[in-house]
């Protein structure tokens, strides 16, 4: 038999749980969006990115970059007199959330174009939704070739991995500070970005006369890399290539140094975050990564961008911020020229982009809807990336 007191407790307990769950669902809905009542004169564009989670700096930097571009545009009169408004959703760095966010942008908010994502895996998850919805999508910095192959509505303003992998391999094999003949590779096996780069790096490194002595994998979110690193240590490589994202890479390098491994690590644009140096500290000195632009580039356009960004956000913009800015600027350029806000018309103009003068260099969109641009190699010194070399697409 249950006493009345116990029954009461049971009831209240259940009601409390129910209320707690309900409040969570509601708050979950609220923190996603920043849309709200827009007057009909504003043009809505969407951005989905990882504002929280282990790739949070990617989404935040990109969002800052896009917002700067929008401010410039609106101050100069908008698109044919109409102002542009950004709707940003957080995808937490998860593919499932990215699809939900983009579905909402396309079907509910009715944006004319979508900007995002940084991580190739997330762009791949959302691209089919934009393609089917007839809304152009520009990825600022997804480098996996498959992203734009989804369809004729999907564009990007950065170079692609067959080029980036070749740049890293060439640098590891031939640059005077490395001259590596034996490489080890550690791949994030759940990330199309990482797997794609691993393939391209291995192909080029072997073609240049090097050998890959050890191949290991990890999963995003892993905390312990000792087993992989001990294996690599036994294979005695000259250089270790890790095409991953900054959170995991920083932990991995810290653990490698603890195991007494002194080899330089080489990586790609997934390393580009101020967090990399913050987490890894001195352990990361002497490691290299390829990137879309260098903060030390003396060109006035870049230095002006850095100064304006710094004044607003009190930090030096990473490449993600610059690419976010460029993707928005290219989109606005196409929207102005298109004359209508139809997805197909904007996409047609985007495809014609030629020698657009962006922060990250001259951007031309090729037949595959990719940008053709040079890459830079950076070296980590005292926790900050320093410019080492520029490698042109033809080389």
């Amino acid at each position, binding site marked *: 038999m249950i006493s009345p007191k116990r029954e009461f407790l049971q009831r209240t307990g259940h009601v409390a749980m129910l209320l707690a769950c309900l409040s969570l669902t509601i708050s979950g809905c609220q923190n996603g969006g920043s849309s709200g009542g827009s007057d009909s004169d504003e043009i809505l564009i969407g951005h989905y990115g990882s504002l929280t989670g282990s790739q949070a700096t990617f989404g935040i930097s990109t969002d800052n970059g896009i917002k700067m571009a929008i401010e410039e545009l609106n101050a100069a009169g908008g698109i044919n007199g109409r102002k542009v408004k950004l709707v940003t959703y957080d995808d937490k760095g998860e593919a499932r959330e990215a699809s939900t966010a983009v579905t909402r942008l396309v079907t509910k908010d009715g944006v004319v174009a979508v900007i995002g994502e940084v991580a190739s895996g997330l762009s791949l998850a959302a691209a089919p939704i934009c393609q089917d919805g007839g809304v152009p999508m520009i990825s600022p910095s997804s480098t996996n070739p498959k992203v734009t192959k989804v369809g004729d509505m999907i564009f990007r303003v950065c170079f692609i991995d067959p080029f980036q992998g070749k740049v890293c391999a060439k640098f590891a094999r031939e640059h005077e500070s490395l001259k590596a003949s034996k490489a080890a590779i550690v791949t994030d*096996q759940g990330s199309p970005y990482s797997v794609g780069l691993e393939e391209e790096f291995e192909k080029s490194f072997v073609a240049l006369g090097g050998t890959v002595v050890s191949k290991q994998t990890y999963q995003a979110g892993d905390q312990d890399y000792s087993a992989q690193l001990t294996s690599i240590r036994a294979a005695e490589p000259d250089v270790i290539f890790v095409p991953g994202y900054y959170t995991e890479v920083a932990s991995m390098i810290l653990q490698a140094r603890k195991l*007494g491994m002194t080899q330089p690590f080489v990586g790609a644009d997934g390393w580009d975050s101020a967090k990399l140096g913050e987490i890894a500290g001195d352990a990361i000195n002497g490691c290299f990564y390829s990137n879309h632009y260098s903060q030390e580039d003396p060109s006035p356009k870049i230095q002006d961008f850095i100064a304006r960004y710094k004044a607003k956000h009190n930090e030096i913009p990473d490449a993600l911020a610059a690419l976010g800015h460029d993707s928005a600027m290219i989109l606005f350029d196409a929207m102005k020229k298109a004359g209508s806000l139809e997805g197909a018309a904007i996409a047609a103009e985007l495809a014609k982009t030629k020698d657009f003068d962006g922060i990250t260099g001259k951007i031309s969109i090729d037949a595959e809807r990719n940008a053709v641009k040079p890459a830079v190699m950076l070296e980590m010194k005292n926790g900050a990336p320093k410019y080492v070399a520029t490698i042109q697409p033809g080389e």
Partner: protein
Amino acid sequence: MSDFAQTLITAIAIGSLYALIALGYTMVYGILKFINFAHSDIVVLGAWGSYSLSVRVLPALGYGLKEVPPVWVALMILLLAMIFCGAIGFTIERLAYRPLRRAPRLNVLITAIGVSLLLQNVGQLSFVFGASPQDMPPLLSDRALATFSFGEGESARQLVIGMVDVVIFTTATSLMLIMQYLVFRTKLGVAMRAVSFNTDTAALMGIPVDRVVSFTFVLGSMLAAAAGFLIVMKYPSISQPAHTIWVLLGLKAFVAAVIGGIGNVRGAVLGGFVIAFVEQFGAFYVSSNYRDVYVFTLLILILLVKPSGLLGSTLREKV
């Protein structure tokens, strides 16, 4: 040789962590016969609690976040985290599980999943822990305690025994020894085992069942908090509370409890070390691609060959 020893050291450290967490699963199962799915979230609370305490306590005591404070500060944070999680464990049992004491097992199990989701999502709120990873300030210097060199010249390799690994092993072992003493040598331990044998008979003999159950939850949660603290000592980059890494960690500790024989305290410890060894040596000698596969394959094999777990049937003392 040095690589074998290095892998062994990692396996022992990680095994201690799995064992600490597995103890919580196994104790609750022993007494209430249900799987407390919210247990891995107590580990998360332990980890994030240690972080939140450190970033507040360290500056208050006049230490920077980058310098290593004296040992007593680390001990204090460990103790506070354990007390905090013990209180949370007590509250969860009191509010969510006790009202369901006479309900069918399935109801309690589903409630446990609900509690787990609640903790994960509340933890992600911006005024609790937030949804971004954070870096744990160093509470212990992670220098190498001992370094041995093997081989000559080019192929010389080092065996590094890190401070943190030793601390993990000694803390976990001492906690497990205290546990062992509590369960097998004290009156309260006798009461716990009695409740585990037969709740109704124990109640008829005058054992305060509710108090014993509460105590079990507090004990399990304190061990989980210690595991959370040790994890952030070893891996200072803390993933956000709802990250799958925590779920996987909880799942592996649960597998450890099942492999050792769920409900059996010594089995949970054995299971923790067994899966850490399978995972680490599998990753080193075979391939790191299938690290998790080894663990779950072992689970399937054990369930096929010896469904009650390694120590499940030989030792009948359950907690």
